């Protein structure tokens, strides 16, 4: 397994916003992802999870961002693509679904027209083939009466249906990598679980790789194979889902799990992380979590730990990785 | 988000002023306007000669003449002095109607926006009638009906601007009124007047103020336009619009001189606009 080249590899990615609001959004982020794997990027607001995702599609304005590092997706050097190659890359190799599907669709065209348009833009097929494919996609995302919904405008669909239509749009050109930016956050609980199950099913069926960004540990557990926990623009810990949930090594991961309310907490005070998330315009010199960490030492406050692979599991394709001077044993 | 080190509170306008310091274009415009205003206000002391003194011998002297730095007009009056004195009326035409309309328009808009419902609809539809006419046409029509004269043109311009400012104030008020902090204030059991004074007014004034700043240049141009048409200031009073009109005949002989009042109108209104732009972005204090 480890001999196969990963589908996605991100190496030492750093990103700073240089516009009106200066911020060091990402610092030295590295991870890789094999074909058919699902990686959950877990973090709170300002952790850099969404920025990472958008950088993979180069969605940030180049004038106001400063990027360094290397992103390779399916053999392509993403940061070096010219605008024509970038267009082909977006949608065909990699596509994205968003938190608010209302913003991803153009309100003046029907759902069907927009899916057909995407297919025609990326593949040399005629209109009727594209139309047939679009209908098939709507069927596959389990939209009832797909033929009727094909001619519906985005505002005529309910939130859950719009999200399904967006998944159909994203998967229309059979991408190898799907980027999901909190696609279930804005949905009701009973709809959220339907969408999670659908994504899981489609992922198994197509064998695509998925990067699933979320702040909800429960959603990540439902869909991901591995979870990378982000904090202050860095990766704090990365491990298989079971490892993260059952044996968190980073104090932040442990704190996050402790702060996640569930039935076992009733009647007891919650274990909470003191303080607030870091200010990306003014990051502390050491570990970004040090000011809120109960086991922080002087070393943590001055020197930032780098992400290291666990030597005990070096034989695995994706060994657990951790950035902490004082991990929880 | 601010750094934790900053402890003391600072007033809203202090923050705006602080941010305005980072807008070089707006600062330059402000400086330019200050110079123009000072020149106009202190014209009686600063002007090199009498703006009314005609001289048939020295008609249409070119720019840079020994006694007349900016030349003379078609009646031999010193251009520099006339431009300085003319600024007094032109700037008054720019500022006074907008200020009056700001006070009246904001009051009506606040009331309509906060009350909402049918009363709001009646007020706004009535103002829409005025809104339907282009402002130039409306100003000319009102001025024409009232007869020429400076007071009448000030009044006409005020009437032209009121509907626009009401509309801005009303729409901002309607937005603010729906925000949770107004609901929270209502939860306190406070009277409407207190809520408007403490919670609505401060948040509406900003956007309306910015819009009004943008109107200053429009008002000045319209005022000059009225004078140009003979509906505003009467000769021989110096006023930029009127000067532009009377110098028309000299446009082939001394085009530079003829263009001077126009240039003043242009520079001043551009400066007003750029300043308004700067104030707008400086007032944009977000999370």
């Amino acid at each position, binding site marked *: 397994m480890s001999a196969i080249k990963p589908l996605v590899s991100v190496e030492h990615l750093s990103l700073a916003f240089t516009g009106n609001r200066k911020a060091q959004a990402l610092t030295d982020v590295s991870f890789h992802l094999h074909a058919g794997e699902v990686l959950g990027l877990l973090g709170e*607001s300002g952790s850099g999870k969404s920025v990472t995702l958008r950088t993979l599609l180069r969605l940030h304005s180049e004038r106001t961002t400063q990027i360094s590092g290397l992103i390779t997706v399916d053999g392509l050097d993403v940061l070096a693509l010219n605008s024509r190659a970038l267009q082909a890359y977006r949608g065909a190799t990699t596509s994205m679904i968003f938190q608010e599907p209302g913003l991803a669709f153009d309100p003046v065209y029907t759902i069907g027209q927009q899916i057909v348009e995407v297919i025609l833009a990326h593949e040399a097929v005629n209109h009727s083939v594209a139309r047939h494919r679009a209908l098939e996609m709507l069927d596959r995302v389990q939209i009832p009466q797909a033929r009727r919904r094909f001619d519906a405008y985005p505002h005529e669909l309910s939130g859950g249906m719009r999200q399904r239509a967006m998944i159909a749009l994203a998967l229309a050109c059979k991408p190898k990598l799907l980027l999901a930016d909190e696609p279930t956050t804005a949905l009701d*609980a*009973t709809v959220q679980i339907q969408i999670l199950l659908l994504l899981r099913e489609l992922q198994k069926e197509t064998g695509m790789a998925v990067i699933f960004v979320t702040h909800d540990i429960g959603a990540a557990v439902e869909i991901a194979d591995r979870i990378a926990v982000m904090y202050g623009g860095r990766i704090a810990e990365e491990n298989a889902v079971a490892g993260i949930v059952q044996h968190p090594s980073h104090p932040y991961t442990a704190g*996050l799990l402790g702060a996640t309310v569930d039935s076992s*907490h009733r009647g007891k*005070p919650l274990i909470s992380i003191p303080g*607030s998330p870091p200010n990306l315009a003014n990051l502390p010199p050491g570990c970004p979590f040090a000011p809120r960490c109960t086991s922080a030492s002087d070393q943590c406050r001055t020197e930032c730990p780098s992400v290291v692979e666990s030597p005990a599991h070096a034989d695995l394709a994706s060994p657990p990785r951790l950035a902490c001077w004082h991990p929880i044993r | 988000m601010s750094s934790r080190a900053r402890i003391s509170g600072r007033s809203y306008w202090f923050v705006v002023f602080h941010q305005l310091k980072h807008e070089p274009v707006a600062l330059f415009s402000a400086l330019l306007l200050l110079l123009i205003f000072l020149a106009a206000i202190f014209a009686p002391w600063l002007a090199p000669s009498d703006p009314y003194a005609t001289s048939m011998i020295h008609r249409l002297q070119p720019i840079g003449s020994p006694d007349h730095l900016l030349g003379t007009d078609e009646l031999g009056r010193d251009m520099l002095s006339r431009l300085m004195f003319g600024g007094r009326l032109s700037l008054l035409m720019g500022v006074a109607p907008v200020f009056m309309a700001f006070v009246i328009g904001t009051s009506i808009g606040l009331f309509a926006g906060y009350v909402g419902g049918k009363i709001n609809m009646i007020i706004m539809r009535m103002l829409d009638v005025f809104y339907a006419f282009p402002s130039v046409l409306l100003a000319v029509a009102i001025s024409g009906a009232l007869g020429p004269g400076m007071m009448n043109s000030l009044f006409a311009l005020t009437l032209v601007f009121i509907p626009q400012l009401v509309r801005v104030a009303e729409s901002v008020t309607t937005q603010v009124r729906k925000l949770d902090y107004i*609901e929270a204030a209502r939860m306190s059991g406070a009277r409407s007047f207190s809520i408007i004074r403490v919670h609505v007014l401060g*948040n509406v004034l900003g956007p309306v103020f910015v819009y009004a700043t943008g109107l200053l240049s429009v008002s000045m141009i319209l005022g000059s336009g009225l004078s140009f048409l003979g509906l505003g200031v009467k000769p021989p009073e110096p006023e930029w619009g009127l000067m532009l009109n009377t110098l028309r005949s000299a446009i082939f002989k001394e085009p530079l001189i003829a263009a001077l009042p126009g240039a003043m109108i242009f520079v001043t209104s551009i400066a007003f606009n750029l300043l308004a732009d700067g104030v707008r972005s400086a007032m944009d204090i977000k999370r």
Partner: protein
Amino acid sequence: MTPIILQVRNLKKYFPVRANLFSREQKFVHAVDDISFNVTKGRTLGIVGESGCGKSTTARLIANLMPADSGAIIFNGEGVGEIGGLELKSFRKKLQMVFQDSFASLNPRLTISETISYGPMVHDTSKEDAHLQAHDLLAKVGLDPDLFASRYPHELSGGQRQRVNIARALAFNPEVVILDEAVAALDKSVQAQVLNLLQDLKAEFELTYLFISHDLHVVHYISDDVMVMYLGQIVEMGPVEQVYSEAAHPYTRALLSAIPSMDPAHRTQKSPITGDPPNPIHPPSGCRFHDRCEHARAICASLVPALMPVQSSHVVACHMNHPSSGYETSGSDVQYASAGATR
């Protein structure tokens, strides 16, 4: 028996909508449709439901932020806003509300201390006293008054702003506080801090909470009683442990089993219900849940079920709850597993 502090009787609110310019038929969103419940002093009533179920409208109706079409709010035995009842201004002091959006609920032009002291000043507290009280309250909600009193909302983080909103509500010395999705917009780590704070304040000030949320975990954690709403109606209500362990309404069960599992070895395999919640403009006839319910029978489409007791204070509105229906309400298939046990 602890006294009932707040009674809601037959509350109803329809919002008119105009379908299109030319249609003469007036349509309504059935936001809150004839609901009645009691809130016991010193307890926390959690209200859960999906978007459009009317939970936030219920909060606004109780808080008198909008007029109800019909129904009554009775506070401590006195009808609110009725002749001979409790005056609205005094009611305002006794019932306060904290909103979801911590930023929109603070006036950006007022300092923190001005915001907190505004309310008491409306009720004739002197400016000096109100500011002193604001300082005390800031300390109570865990914000250093010397550091925060003269700051502006945009200089605070989301969690800090929500603490300010709580302090503002407490400035009235209220008896009931409505928390409308008050922790929903906060990061998980900060959410836990605020939930702890709410629990501490409840004990210290002897408060009664109405806790509105879509997050079933949070409602379970903080509530004593829970009320489940669906399309403007109450479908189930009772003590929280009983409702969560022995959910009697199919909708409550669906909600509970829709919670992600937190155990990678036992992921959710099947979605409990399909489809989205229906449009509240045309709620289904009979039981409003019948078109998504796998147990629905003919009677469900024709007859509106009434709230009937399952046990003493646990009530449910479902025809299948009737013993003769043959439908079991043991709740054994509810997969609401505690994640703590799996860790």
